[in-house]
Structures are given as structure tokens and as C-alpha cells.
């Protein structure tokens, strides 16, 4: 399939008229290719679909393109060819701001995600830049911090929190925007066992659809019914997690 560049799409289709066609999938990637400016091919024709509320793990070796793929979901990176559609709307300059409110992207290093001098400022950043009024911003910040079990740290500096706490606050900075899709980059990396257990419980409880890049296969088995294996920029496996995790030969093949 020869895909057309995203920029020539016919503008946003945010509200498809009912009854004409079945509702579009929450997320759809069509033959997404991406090359970094230095010429490295990171994604070589990735196609996948995610339904509302579906929890999917994205596994693969370092350099397989997991982080690059996640950065496409809210348009931080734009595919060289192919298309990314969120709720049927292609990621383009016109839809960018709307899509960023729908897709919550969590970076691997919470020190990248938490850039404000206090926790409150950081969690409030998204709602403020979405143009919400003060009362709503405050209500959302306390709700999001409560959701991740971090109420009461509003005035603390992110630097004074432990890694597990920073990861939780980082997740709150995303949840506060009420996204329908969470794109999380290695949320369990570097956590101690207790913090990791807390995170797993949190991920299971969240109602949102999520695409989670991870190396933590034990977490995959617990949280994610569906697994996508990314191998050298292409989808090598897309299906239920259990048979994949039981197939030693297959795991060996993808370096898992």
C-alpha cells in the first residue's frame, strides 16, 4: 500500500456523522514509516488498531522503535509516510491540539515529564494550557493526584520525591487531562518491588485504553491481555499475550 503523506489529509474528521459507518477505532496506525533526521529507519510500516478501553503491551528490544511509535500517537513525531488516526481523525497540524488532549503521553524519565518547580504547577500545566478556568484546574489537579495516591505533595519539589513517587506524579500530569488513550513508556522501569506492585494495581484500575511500552514481561502477563511485539521497526506479533509468553522459541526469536 502506497500511503499518502499526513499533511495532505482533508482536515479534521472529529465528529463522523452517525449511521454512515461503524465508529472508527480509538487508534489506528496505517503503514507508518518514520526515519530520524540522521537517516535511521525507526518505523518501517507499522499498522495496528486499538479499541476503546483496550490495554495493550508494546514489547521489543531497545531500538525496536517502541518509544518512537509512542511519540507518533500525539504528533510529537510525524510519520514520514502512512497515517496515525485518533478516533478517526488523522494526526495533522489542524487536529494536533485536540489530539493531545485525547492522548496522554508519559515519558520514560519522570525528570523529563516533571519540568515545573512544584508538583502542583506540573500537574496543572496541561489543564492550564488547555484553557481551563482556575476552579476546574484546581479540582482536576487534586483529583488526579488522588487517583495516583499522591495527595498532599502539591507544594513539594519533584526533586524531593522518590523515583516511584515521581513516576506516580508524572502519571497524574497525564491523567489530569482526561485522555481516552494512555501511551506510557516503560512505566515500571527502575521501580522497587512495592512501587511496581502499586503501579500494576493502578494500571489495572484505570478505565482508559493504553498502549504501554515495556520490558517487564511479568507485568505484561498481569495487566495486558493483548501484546504487540515490535521488531526492527515492524510489528512481528500482534495477539493475545498468554500464548506468546508461553512460546519460548518465539520469545527467543524476538530477543524477549
Amino acid at each position, binding site marked *: 500500500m502506497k500511503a499518502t503523506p499526513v499533511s495532505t489529509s482533508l482536515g479534521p474528521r472529529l465528529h463522523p456523522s452517525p449511521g454512515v459507518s461503524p465508529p472508527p477505532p480509538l487508534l489506528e496506525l496505517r503503514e507508518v514509516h518514520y526515519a530520524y533526521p540522521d537517516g535511521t529507519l525507526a518505523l518501517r510500516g507499522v499498522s495496528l488498531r486499538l479499541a476503546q478501553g483496550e490495554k495493550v503491551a508494546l514489547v521489543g528490544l531497545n531500538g525496536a522503535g517502541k518509544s518512537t511509535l509512542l511519540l507518533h500517537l500525539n504528533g*510529537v513525531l510525524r510519520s514520514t509516510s502512512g497515517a496515525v488516526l485518533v478516533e478517526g481523525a488523522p494526526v495533522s497540524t489542524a487536529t494536533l*491540539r485536540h489530539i493531545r488532549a485525547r492522548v496522554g503521553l508519559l*515519558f520514560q524519565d519522570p525528570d*523529563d515529564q516533571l*519540568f*515545573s518547580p512544584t508538583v502542583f504547577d506540573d500537574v*496543572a*500545566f496541561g489543564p492550564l494550557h488547555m484553557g481551563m478556568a482556575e476552579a476546574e484546574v484546581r479540582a482536576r489537579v487534586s483529583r488526579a493526584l488522588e487517583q495516583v495516591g499522591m495527595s498532599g505533595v502539591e507544594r513539594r519539589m519533584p526533586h524531593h520525591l522518590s523515583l516511584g513517587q515521581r513516576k506516580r506524579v508524572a502519571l497524574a500530569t497525564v491523567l489530569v487531562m482526561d485522555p481516552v488513550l494512555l501511551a506510557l513508556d516503560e512505566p515500571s522501569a527502575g521501580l522497587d518491588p512495592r512501587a511496581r506492585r502499586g503501579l500494576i494495581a493502578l494500571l489495572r484500575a484505570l478505565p482508559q485504553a493504553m498502549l504501554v511500552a515495556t520490558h517487564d514481561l511479568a507485568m505484561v502477563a498481569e495487566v495486558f491481555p493483548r501484546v504487540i511485539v515490535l521488531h526492527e521497526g515492524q510489528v512481528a506479533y500482534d495477539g493475545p499475550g498468554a500464548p506468546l509468553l508461553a512460546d519460548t522459541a518465539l520469545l527467543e526469536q524476538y530477543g524477549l
Partner: protein
Amino acid sequence: MALASSLDPYVDRASPIHALDARVKLALTLALVLALALVPPGRWLALAAIAALLWWAVLRSAVGPGRILRRAFITAPFALAALTLTVTRPGAPLIALSLGPLALTVTDAGLVAFVAVILKTWLSVQAALLLMATSRFTEVLGALRSLGLPAMLVAMLGFAYRYLFVLVDEAERLLRARESRAAALPGRRAGGSIAWRAGVLGSMVGTLFLRAYERSERIHAAMLSRGYSGEWRSLPARPLSAGERGLLVTGAALLAAIVWLAHWR
């Protein structure tokens, strides 16, 4: 962690000065520094009056007057630049110095100007130290914003404060990695030449810069992901209470009166 607590170890104490809104403290600190600058040299009484106001606040701050006074000497070396005033101001000669071909005369007016500069610098630094010892950095940032500093500049100061600690941690990790490999075998000279060591240090600084640069790109992506589009937004500050406004006006009026008296009486 260590750095963070050494930067502001006193902000968590309780005192009327700590409780005061940072906007009031910042405005009064700036007014005090301005007043000090406007007092003409030789008006010791006016300087004493300003110092009395400042020290009254210091005494009520629970930080410890000795600590503020001592820390304020940190800028003393810079104040020494004013030493040239003693020999360049015209006035009655006090001491004649001859340094080789150079003949210098210390004048009374010059000496007065020099002492005034030293005292003013010392007091100004004390005022700034008191502000920073009794206010959280973020509160001072908010106060700067309220006083009209552009939001983007305030945001940049906030980033500097946030990532200072991250950068120091990264530098510490690099140094530790170097330490743990700087081993020596018995009977052999270890460590390499000065030039070689300087090269190692240089590449560490380079590494640190590259990491900071790459981090800045990731931070920008994180900002974009949360709706940032070039315009910095923050919540509006709460209006000052009548009491706070009263204190602000009273303080500013006192300082203005001292400066006025020093000029015209």
C-alpha cells in the same frame, strides 16, 4: 538532595516573616535596596535607620541574625572594587601612597564614599538573603511574575531551579564513575599527566552538556504533549489582603521618608 537543602535550609521555619506573602517581601526588599542606593554618601544616620528596619525584620525571622550577617560578607570581594574610589574622589588629602612610579592620595571624600559602598552592599545582600531564607523559591518566582517580570523569563528561572538539581546529580554520578575507576596498582605511578586529567574532565563536561541538551529536547516534547503552544500560562495570583497592602505601603513610605530626610536635611 544535599544541594537542595543547603540552598534553602531555613524556609520551613515558622515566623511572621516566613508567613508574609512573598510579593510583599520582594517589593519591600527591592524598595530597601533602592533606598540604600539613593542615600548620599556620608549620611550615616540614614544608613543606620535603614539597617534598623532591616535588622528588626531579621530578628523576627527565626533565621538567626548572625547567620544572615555572616553570609552577607560573601560579596565583600566584589565591594573591594570600590577601593579605587578612595584615591579618585577629589577632597582633602589624608594619606599619600607611592607605589613605584604611581603616587596616590587617599582623600576624605573618597574614604567616605568607599565605606558607604561597603555598607550599602552589605545591607543589600542581607536584605536579599533574608528574602530567600524566608520564602520558597517558587513563591519568589510567583512574586516576580506579579511584579511584572515577563512570564517566559519567570518560566526560565523556574526551569533553571528545577534542573539545577537534576544536573548536579548527573555530574555527581559522572564523578563517582570516574572515582571508582581511578585505581592504582601497587608500585606503579597512577593518575596520568595534568593534561590527560584535564582532557578527561573536559570530556565529562562535554558529556554533561550533551545530556542536558538532549534532555531539553525531551522536556520540550513533554510540554508539547500537554498542550503547550508557545504561550506560557499560570494561575492568577490571589489579591493582596488589606493588611498586606498596608504593610507594603508603610514600609515603602518609611524608606522614602528616610531617603528624603537624608537628601534635604
